[in-house]
Structure formats: structure tokens, C-alpha cells
């Protein structure tokens, strides 16, 4: 299980390969990657603020819950903060399990909780100004299924 909160960019492919290579006996690997949407070229950057200390604790708690709830061989969360460019990767989650249902469910669970319970705040920087991204009702509602 690995958790990284970092400002540096990461390489989705290299992370996915390293994660998959570390598995023995887990036939199913799911990854989710969040990418900065450029919104038709209007976005010049995305700034992500976070709460150092709480961020790591909140994500570790979410990962522990996922490992306890599903039959998982491994899990990975990488989340960036700081200034990101359009089309940059923001974060990724990876899960490995013997059966795909566990890997998918755990990845979705991790994403739903990271969206609404990990202390990150996104700000879109555009040519015409900057705006904090509003939380989506659907994201809060998504938690109720778990």
C-alpha cells in the first residue's frame, strides 16, 4: 500500500507498470487517473491547495477502509498539489485484487472519498480570472452508496 501527496508530476504509465509488477496472484488491476480538463482551451492552470498533515491522515484512513472492506492485494493513491497545467495528471488510484469486482469497487470507493473527504481545494486559473471549483452535489451523493 502506498500513498504519495506531492507537487511533482507523475507518470501514469510508469506508476501503473510498477504497481502491476509488484502483484503476484492478483489477476485484476484497476487504475483511475484524473487529468486537468482544459475546458476548450480556456484554462491556463489549476491550483490545488491542501491541508498538510490532515491530507495524508485522511487518505490513509480511506485506504485502510478500502483494504478492510474488499479483498484487495494492494492499493495506491497519488495526489498532487500546487500549480498544474492543462492536461497534467492530478491524481491516480490503483487497486489490485484476485477478482475484478473487488478491484473496481475499491477504486470507485477510494475516488468517491477522495473527492469529498480528502482536504484538497481546486482553483481554476483562466485568462478572465480565477475561480474555486465548487463541490458537486453528485459527489456528495455518491458517498451514500457505500
Amino acid at each position: 500500500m502506498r500513498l504519495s501527496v506531492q507537487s511533482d508530476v507523475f507518470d501514469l504509465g510508469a506508476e501503473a507498470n510498477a504497481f502491476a509488477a509488484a502483484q503476484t496472484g492478483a489477476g485484476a488491476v484497476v487504475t483511475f487517473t484524473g487529468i486537468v480538463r482544459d475546458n476548450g482551451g480556456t484554462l491556463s492552470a489549476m491550483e490545488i491547495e491542501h491541508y498538510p498533515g490532515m491530507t495524508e491522515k485522511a487518505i490513509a484512513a480511506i485506504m485502510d477502509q478500502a483494504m478492510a472492506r474488499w479483498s484487495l492485494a494492494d492499493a495506491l493513491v497519488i495526489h498532487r498539489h500546487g500549480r498544474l497545467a492543462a492536461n497534467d495528471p492530478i491524481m491516480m488510484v490503483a487497486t489490485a485484487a484476485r477478482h475484478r469486482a473487488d478491484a473496481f469497487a475499491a477504486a470507485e470507493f477510494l475516488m468517491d472519498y477522495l473527492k469529498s473527504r480528502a482536504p484538497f481545494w481546486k482553483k481554476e486559473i483562466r485568462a478572465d480570472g480565477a475561480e474555486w471549483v465548487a463541490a458537486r452535489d453528485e459527489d456528495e451523493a455518491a458517498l451514500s452508496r457505500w
Partner: protein
Amino acid sequence: MIEVIYFAWVRERIGLPREQIATTATTVAELVEELKAREDRYAMAFADLASLRVALDQELSSFDAPLAGVREVAFFPPMTGG
């Protein structure tokens, strides 16, 4: 003394990221009332508590939670990670 931390637009409205506050508040809600009474920028930041979240010592909590023993209070809008 209690460490009070602000994030995202709460930080921007109040104009600083953190401060040490001497308070006799026994709950988060009382602390918020004290802050709102200080200056307009606090009153504006805390105008709508439904759009705010609070963490006590880095754990999500609620506005009616007691402050006894708490060293760090953080106020912020709903999180937008992922």
C-alpha cells in the same frame, strides 16, 4: 491559545492562512461567533455555515463540537479532491 487555520476562499476572504487565537469559546460555533464579531472580513467568510466545513486536530468535525483539548481548528469549503 488555539491555532486557527483557513483554506481556499475562507483563507482569501479572511486574508491570512492561520492565526493564534485566545478564546473562551467552548464549542466551534461559539468560536465562529467570536470571529464574526471581530471584523467584516470574518463575518463575510462565516456568513453561510452550510457552505463551510471544520476540522478539529485534523479530523472532520461539526460546528456543535466542543473545543476542550483542541489545539488546531481548520475552516474550509467543501473539499474538491480527486
